């Protein structure tokens, strides 16, 4: 896409204040079926004509028929507190604008008040469905500035945990996507499988969500005894469950007609808008940071990057199902090769002394106290590290001035960038498809607003 095309016609940005006042009141006339009963007009009215970037004849509807509808911020299918301002012409969305910030809690400002060791407690609360990915991006950035390399076992644990987290996050995406379209059983099924993974997370990290498990220099604790049986149980049960999802959705004509050809994003649009993750893969672009910029030794494991072809809601759902399979493949390989050794780096600067040493050594106690009150100092510098989160590129831009707290921490949130695609995916489509499109982008508002 050249810049000339992006500047003028393709720039679907709703500029504030361009709504004309006469659009605001609801016009009862929009509810009426038009008297013209030609086949084309009827098809349009019944919504049988769905094309991406369908250009309407300007004479077709007068401006009086347009109205603005606010969907959200308190709407059950906006996945949190997303508000969509939608300009409707009858049943058809002409323009839309996501309005965000309802969940903004200033986490980037908070990060400047926390030491590097405390940072993961903050970032884990951003994308609350994929907390481990947020922690990983942050810790990779801290480790890059420190110039330390985590031990192989820590890296393998990180891969294991983040890939399981991808599965649990995609399960929520599938469950809520199904629920929003009306496949309510999918919601129950998805949350059932997710519960098994969260139970393993709770056993390992102590918490179901917001783990603060991945820390600069390694992970907080070793895997619990019997972890292999737990993970093997998840891997054994999942293929059968994925087949059940296929039974529920893949052979369901309602599901197919609600998702196929809906909310289309083309590959060039996705790249221009900086969309990543399943939404980009669904357009046919096989771009995955795990392949392009591998982290935590993920390059030693074999997996495919699933892609779609049309970039519609169905393809995004399909990519998520396939990504679950690929993630389970990675988890299985990690289980087999899990190295022995320490789960934290052997660097006294960042790693607190073992608990037993504190009882017998005054120096160890002081060291422990200093690490948890003052924190460790990180050399000045700036870096950007990104991981492939279930929603796309989750990056952490970290600037240190040599102190114990980040000078600036910025999270490149995948949901934030992906949300920009909603207007282009929804433009000139039916109002009823809004919910399906929003659900398929899988925005997590904690990640969007931070």
């Amino acid at each position: 896409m050249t810049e000339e095309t992006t500047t003028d016609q393709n720039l679907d940005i709703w500029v504030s204040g361009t709504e004309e006042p006469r659009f605001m009141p609801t016009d009862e006339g929009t509810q009426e079926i038009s008297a013209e009963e030609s086949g084309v007009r009827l098809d349009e009215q019944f919504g049988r004509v769905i094309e991406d970037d369908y250009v309407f004849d300007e004479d077709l509807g007068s401006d009086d028929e347009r109205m603005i509808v606010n969907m959200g911020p308190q709407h059950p299918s906006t996945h949190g507190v997303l508000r969509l301002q939608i300009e409707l012409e009858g049943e058809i969305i002409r323009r839309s604008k996501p309005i965000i910030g309802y969940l903004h809690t200033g986490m980037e400002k908070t990060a400047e008040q926390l030491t590097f060791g405390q940072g993961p407690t903050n970032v884990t609360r951003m994308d609350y469905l994929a907390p481990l990915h947020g922690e990983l991006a942050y810790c990779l950035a801290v480790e890059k500035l420190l110039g330390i390399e985590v031990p192989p076992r820590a890296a393998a644990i990180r891969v294991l945990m983040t890939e399981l987290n991808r599965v649990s996050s995609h399960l929520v995406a599938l469950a809520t996507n199904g629920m929003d379209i009306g496949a309510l059983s999918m919601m129950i099924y998805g949350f059932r499988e997710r519960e098994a993974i969260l139970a393993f997370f709770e056993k390992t990290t102590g918490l179901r969500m917001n783990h603060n498990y991945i820390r600069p220099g390694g992970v907080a604790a070793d895997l619990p005894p019997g972890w292999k049986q737990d993970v093997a149980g998840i891997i054994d049960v999942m293929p059968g469950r994925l087949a059940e999802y296929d039974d529920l959705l893949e052979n369901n004509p309602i599901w197919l007609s609600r998702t196929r050809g809906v909310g289309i994003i083309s590959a060039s649009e996705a790249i221009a808008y900086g969309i990543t993750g399943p939404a980009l893969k669904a357009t046919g672009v096989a771009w995955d940071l795990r392949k392009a910029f591998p982290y935590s030794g993920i390059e030693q494991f074999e997996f495919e990057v699933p892609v779609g072809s049309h970039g519609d809601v169905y393809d995004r759902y399909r990519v998520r199902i396939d990504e679950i399979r690929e993630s389970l493949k990675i988890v299985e390989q990690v289980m087999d090769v899990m190295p022995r050794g320490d789960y934290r780096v052997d660097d006294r600067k960042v790693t607190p002394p073992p608990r037993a040493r504190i009882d017998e050594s005054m120096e160890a106690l002081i060291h422990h106290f200093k690490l948890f009150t003052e924190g460790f100092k990180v050399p000045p510098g700036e870096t950007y590290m990104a991981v492939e989160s279930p929603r796309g590129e989750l990056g952490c831009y970290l600037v240190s001035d040599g102190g114990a707290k980040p000078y600036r921490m910025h999270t490149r949130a995948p949901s934030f960038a992906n949300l920009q695609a909603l207007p282009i995916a929804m433009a000139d489509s039916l109002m009823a498809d809004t919910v399906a499109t929003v659900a398929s982008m899988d925005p997590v508002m904690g990640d969007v607003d931070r």
Partner: protein
Amino acid sequence: MTEALINELFAEFSGATLEDSLGQNVARVDNAEWFAAARVAKHGGFEVCVDVTVVDRMTSRPDRFEIVANLLSMQHQARLRLITTAPRQDPSVASLVPLWPGANFAEREAYDMFGIVFEGHPDLTRILMPDDWQGHPLRKDFGVGSVPVQFKESHQVT
């Protein structure tokens, strides 16, 4: 390979300096050349603008604000960080939205949080903070503030 590519791209910019920041490619350009440098980078293969953000350097640098754009080249599998500066008074820089529509939200966030004016941005309004908010919260001279929290009714201890 990518370093050679980046060197070639930025040869025409007099104010550009190329750095290696812990193994990552960084190009610092003049504020006036920001858009031109970004355009050259885009046509040179960096087809994705991943992120635009700001660092408030206060007095440690001659210019207070650093505007950082993270660019990504899928075809070369490379990243490039474009950095420019903006002065303390009326900080502004050219908007990258004409090149990458995806810079829209990121620049609005940068405006909201730091008060950087992106010239040419079609819809430069607050995005995360309320519309009537005073000040720009991520600036270093914006206090953290606190709200007293009382967890439950308790007797005043004197």
